[in-house]
């Protein structure tokens, strides 16, 4: 049973992954990637990682729905109504990725992997939680700071006109330098 589920999920994940670069509509591309991650989450659940599988599925649903908005905003061919090429050096890219896959597959087949482990933890989720709040606390704190830095950096990068543009480098301008004057309490 597990073998059948693995193959179905694996083939669907790979097929949706290929569709990401075959479809021409940006909305469909985003949902193809979402599909691929749903099947990856299913594989994680199959591996006994129930919590992480559900986290991947829930996170990717939200991420891809938000991403669809940006994809449609930034694509030159958002609706996919006109067939057009959006690739460069297609043959080189195909060759490189083909060689990488062949090398990885050869490595997987050639390397003698250790025998499967015999003992299993009773609750993998409890194991992860105790680890993140114990031995891997530094990892968790680093991830937290990295996420905070991402929030600040993304806001700074995507802000068009910040307070330094409006109030000067020393923030000493009393009346902001706006393209359109006015507003409550201003002249």
């Amino acid at each position, binding site marked *: 049973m597990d073998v059948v589920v693995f193959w179905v999920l694996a083939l669907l994940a790979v097929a949706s992954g290929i569709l990401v670069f075959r479809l021409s509509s940006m909305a469909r591309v985003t949902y193809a990637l979402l599909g691929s991650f749903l099947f990856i989450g299913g594989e994680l659940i199959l591996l006994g*990682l129930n919590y992480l599988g559900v986290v991947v599925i829930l996170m990717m649903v939200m991420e891809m729905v938000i991403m669809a908005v940006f994809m449609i905003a930034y694509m030159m061919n958002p609706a996919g109504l006109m067939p057009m090429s959006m690739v460069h050096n297609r043959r080189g890219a195909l060759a490189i990725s083909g060689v990488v896959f062949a090398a990885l597959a050869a490595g997987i087949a050639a390397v003698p992997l250790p025998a499967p482990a015999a003992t299993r933890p009773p609750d993998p989720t409890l194991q992860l939680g105790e680890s993140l709040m114990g031995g891997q606390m530094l990892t968790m704190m680093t991830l937290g700071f990295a996420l905070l830095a991402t929030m600040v950096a993304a806001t700074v990068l995507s802000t068009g006109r910040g307070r330094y543009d409006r109030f000067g480098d020393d923030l000493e301008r009393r009346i902001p330098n706006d393209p359109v004057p006015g507003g409550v309490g201003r002249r």
Partner: protein
Amino acid sequence: MSLQWFLLLAAALFSIGLYGVLSQQSIVMIMMGLELMLGGVIVAAGAFWHFLAPTAAAGQVIVVVVVVAMAMEMAMGFAVTTAIFRAREVDMTDQARELKG
């Protein structure tokens, strides 16, 4: 189910993502390729944890790290795309090659 098949799935996802990263012109499509590559890493880490070291939590922690990396990559990628589009109306890598050596 065996470790080899899971690793082969991870290699396939990684290679498809690599093809996208190398071939796509649009910055946002390159980010899709990166996500797919990280998806392959998630499968490989989960499989290694399940088959080789289920008593060590580090395998699960790697999955958590990769998931966070995906979220950060997405946020920063869109921020950079927004910044470069606002500055120069560029949304393709071919138009942003000033730093090419």
